[in-house]
C-alpha cells in the first residue's frame, strides 16, 4: 500500500499536537528532570519541553505499550473465600509521536514475543490502541548501530512516518491506522504534489551518508546463528566480558526489546492487587526457585541476556534479532559493558 506524502510548516507543529491531543492521548519526547521521556501532552502542557532534536529518550517507546507496572487483577480474601474483584483497566486511543526507527523495530520484536500463542492481551490492547508516528533521525549518535540490523533511520517504519527537513515536517501514513489519523488531521496537513518531495530526498541522502560514517555501523552478525548456539554458549570470553557487570538492571530496563517481567501481589490491607512489573535477567533472584537457582553467578546471567538477544530469539523468530541497535545500553551501563562489546568479542576477529 503506497501512501502519499503530506507536509506542514514546522512552526505549525504545535497546532498539529493540539489537534491530535483533542481526540486522543498524545505522547511526545519531553524533558523531565534533565532527561528525555515520552510524556503525556495535553492542552495545558508547555510545549517548550518537547524535544525532537534529542535523538533518544532515556526510556524507550516500549513503556507506552508494555508499562513498567501494570495491574493484572485484584482480589479480596474473606475467610476461605477469594473474590476476583477487577482486572486491568482499558486503554484509551493514543498516539506516540517522535518514535525513532530503532524503537519502532523493537515493537516488532515485542509483537512476536507477546502476540504469539497464547496472546498477551494486555500488550495487545495497548498495541491496538496506539498509533506509532515515527521520526527520521537527522543526527544519529556515535552509539547508534541500527543499520547493523537493517533498520533504515532515514526512512523509519511506522503507522505514520515523518521527517523534519529544514522548516518542513513531512508526513506519510504507513498503515491503515496511520491513514485514519491522517484523515483526522486533514485540516492541517497539505498533500504534496510529488510522490517524494525534493527536500525529503535530500534529507534521506544526508542521513544515509552520516549513517555510513557511524563508528559502530559495521558490526558483523555473521557469527550469531542458531547453529552456533553451543559454541557461543561455551565461549570462555563470557567470563571476562561479565567481569565489570554489577548485576543491576539498567541495560534491561532501558532496552526497547527486553520483555521480562515479574508478577507480584500487593496487599493493600483491604484487598490484594496483582500486578506485573519489569524484571531483569541480570538479577540474582530472577531464576531462584525454592530448590535452587540454575544461574548461580553473574557470568551466567550476563550470558543469558546477550545469548537471548543474539541467538535464542532469532532461532525462534526467523532470524530477527532482539536488538535494534538503539545504543541505550552503550550509553547507560554504569560500568560501560554493552551489546557492542559482546558482539565485537564474540563476533570474531573482523571487528578488532
Amino acid at each position: 500500500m503506497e501512501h502519499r506524502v503530506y507536509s506542514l510548516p514546522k512552526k505549525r507543529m504545535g497546532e498539529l499536537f493540539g489537534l491530535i491531543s483533542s481526540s486522543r492521548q498524545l505522547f511526545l519526547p519531553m524533558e523531565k528532570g534533565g532527561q528525555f521521556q515520552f510524556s503525556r501532552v495535553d492542552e495545558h502542557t508547555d510545549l517548550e519541553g518537547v524535544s525532537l532534536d534529542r535523538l533518544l529518550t532515556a526510556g524507550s517507546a516500549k513503556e507506552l505499550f508494555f508499562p513498567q507496572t501494570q495491574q493484572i487483577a485484584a482480589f479480596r480474601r474473606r475467610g476461605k473465600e477469594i473474590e476476583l474483584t477487577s482486572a486491568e483497566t482499558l486503554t484509551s486511543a493514543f498516539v506516540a509521536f517522535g518514535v525513532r526507527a530503532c524503537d519502532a523495530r523493537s515493537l516488532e520484536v515485542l509483537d512476536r514475543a507477546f502476540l504469539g500463542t497464547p496472546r498477551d492481551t494486555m500488550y495487545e490492547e495497548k498495541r491496538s490502541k496506539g498509533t506509532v508516528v515515527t521520526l527520521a533521525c537527522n543526527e544519529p549518535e556515535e552509539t547508534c548501530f541500527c543499520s547493523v540490523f537493517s533498520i533504515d533511520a532515514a526512512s523509519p517504519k511506522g503507522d505514520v512516518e515523518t521527517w523534519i527537513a529544514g522548516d518542513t515536517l513531512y508526513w506519510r501514513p504507513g498503515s491503515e491506522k496511520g491513514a485514519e489519523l491522517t484523515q483526522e488531521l486533514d485540516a492541517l496537513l497539505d498533500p504534496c504534489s510529488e510522490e517524494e518531495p525534493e527536500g525529503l530526498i535530500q534529507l534521506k541522502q544526508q542521513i544515509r551518508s552520516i549513517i555510513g560514517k557511524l563508528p559502530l555501523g559495521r558490526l558483523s552478525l555473521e557469527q550469531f546463528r542458531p547453529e552456533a548456539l553451543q559454541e557461543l554458549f561455551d565461549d570462555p570470553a563470557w567470563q571476562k566480558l561479565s567481569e565489570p557487570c554489577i548485576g543491576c538492571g539498567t541495560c534491561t530496563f532501558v532496552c526497547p526489546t527486553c520483555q521480562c517481567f515479574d508478577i507480584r501481589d500487593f496487599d493493600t490491607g483491604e484487598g490484594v492487587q496483582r500486578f506485573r512489573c519489569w524484571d531483569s535477567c541480570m538479577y540474582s533472584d530472577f531464576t531462584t526457585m525454592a530448590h535452587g537457582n540454575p544461574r548461580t553467578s553473574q557470568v551466567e546471567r550476563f550470558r543469558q541476556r546477550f545469548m537471548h538477544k543474539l541467538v535464542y530469539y532469532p532461532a525462534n523468530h526467523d532470524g530477527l534479532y532482539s536488538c535494534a541497535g538503539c545504543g541505550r545500553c552503550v550509553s547507560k551501563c554504569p560500568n560501560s559493558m554493552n551489546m557492542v562489546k559482546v558482539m565485537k568479542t564474540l563476533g570474531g576477529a573482523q571487528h578488532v
Partner: protein
Amino acid sequence: MHNSSCTVKETARKILESGQAERLLGWEQDSSGYNHAPAVFKSAGELDRFIYDRFCGSNLSKLLARLREAEGRTAVLLKACDRESFNLLVREHRIDPEQVHRVDIECSGMVDIEKLRNKGIKGIREITESGDELHISTLYGEKRCRSEEVLLEKCLSCPAVSSADAFDAVGQMEERSSLERYEFWKEALSTCIRCNACRNSCPVCTCEQCIFDNPRSGTAGKASADFFEDQHFHLVRVFHAAGRCTDCGECTRVCPQGIPLYLLNRKVIKDINELYGELSLEDKELGKGALTSFSFQDAHPDIIRKRTGDQ
C-alpha cells in the same frame, strides 16, 4: 592529565612485572574513547588495553570487594574520591587489606559524558584535551568545551578539583518550602525505573541479600506501582547508607534517569556533620558510625520541627 595517565600505566606495569600483585584492577580502553570499563589485568602484557584518562569515573572498590575470594594479592587504583569507600570496606571487613596492594592515583576530575551531551554535543568521535579545554571531534564538526563545566557531580565535592561547596545545593534545597521540595522530589523520584544501578554500584551496599530482594521482607517490590514506592526505595537506600556514605558519587554517576541522588546522600552527611560533628578517625577505626554511637548531649528531634521557612 596526560602525564599522570602515563605515570599510572607505568605504575601498573611495575606492579604486575614485579609480582607485587597477582592482578590489577583498573580500566580498559574502549574504542569510543570514553566508555572505559573497569577490568582486571593479570599480566603486564595485557596492559596495552589499560587506560587512565578523564573517563575513568567508576569507583573500583566495590569490584575489589567482589574479588575477595581470589587467590593472591590484588592491586587497586584509587582516586581521591574512592579512598574513603575503600577504607570503609576495610573497616567493615568486606576487603582484606592484607590481600590488597593499594595504589593512590592522582585525578584532575572526571568528565560526565551526559553533561557533554546535554550541551548539545552529538556524535562524539574523539575527545582530546588541551589545557583546561576539551576538543571534541564529532560527526557534526569540531566542538570545544571547558572541562570544568562537564565534570561529574562527584568531582564538585573534591577539594583537589573544585572549589565549590558540595553542600551548597543541599542548602538551597533546604531553603525551599516544604511543598516545593515535595514537588521537586516527586518529579525527580517518579522517573526512577528501579533498575538498582544506584544500589548495585554503591560501595557501602554490601548486604548478602538486600531487603528489596528478599521476598519475606514485605518490601521486595520491584516496581514503582505507586509514588510511595519511589519515595520508600530511595529513603531506605539513603538511610541504609546513613553514617556510612562516603559521598563517592557512584549512585549519581550511574543513574540512567539522571536523578540527583547526591542531594539525598549529602543531606544526611550535612545533618550528621551539623548535629553530631565529624567522627574522629579513631571512632571510625572502631567501626563506629553516626548511627551506631551517641552522646548524652544529642539534640532532640524536635529541632526539626523548629526549623523555619516552611509550609
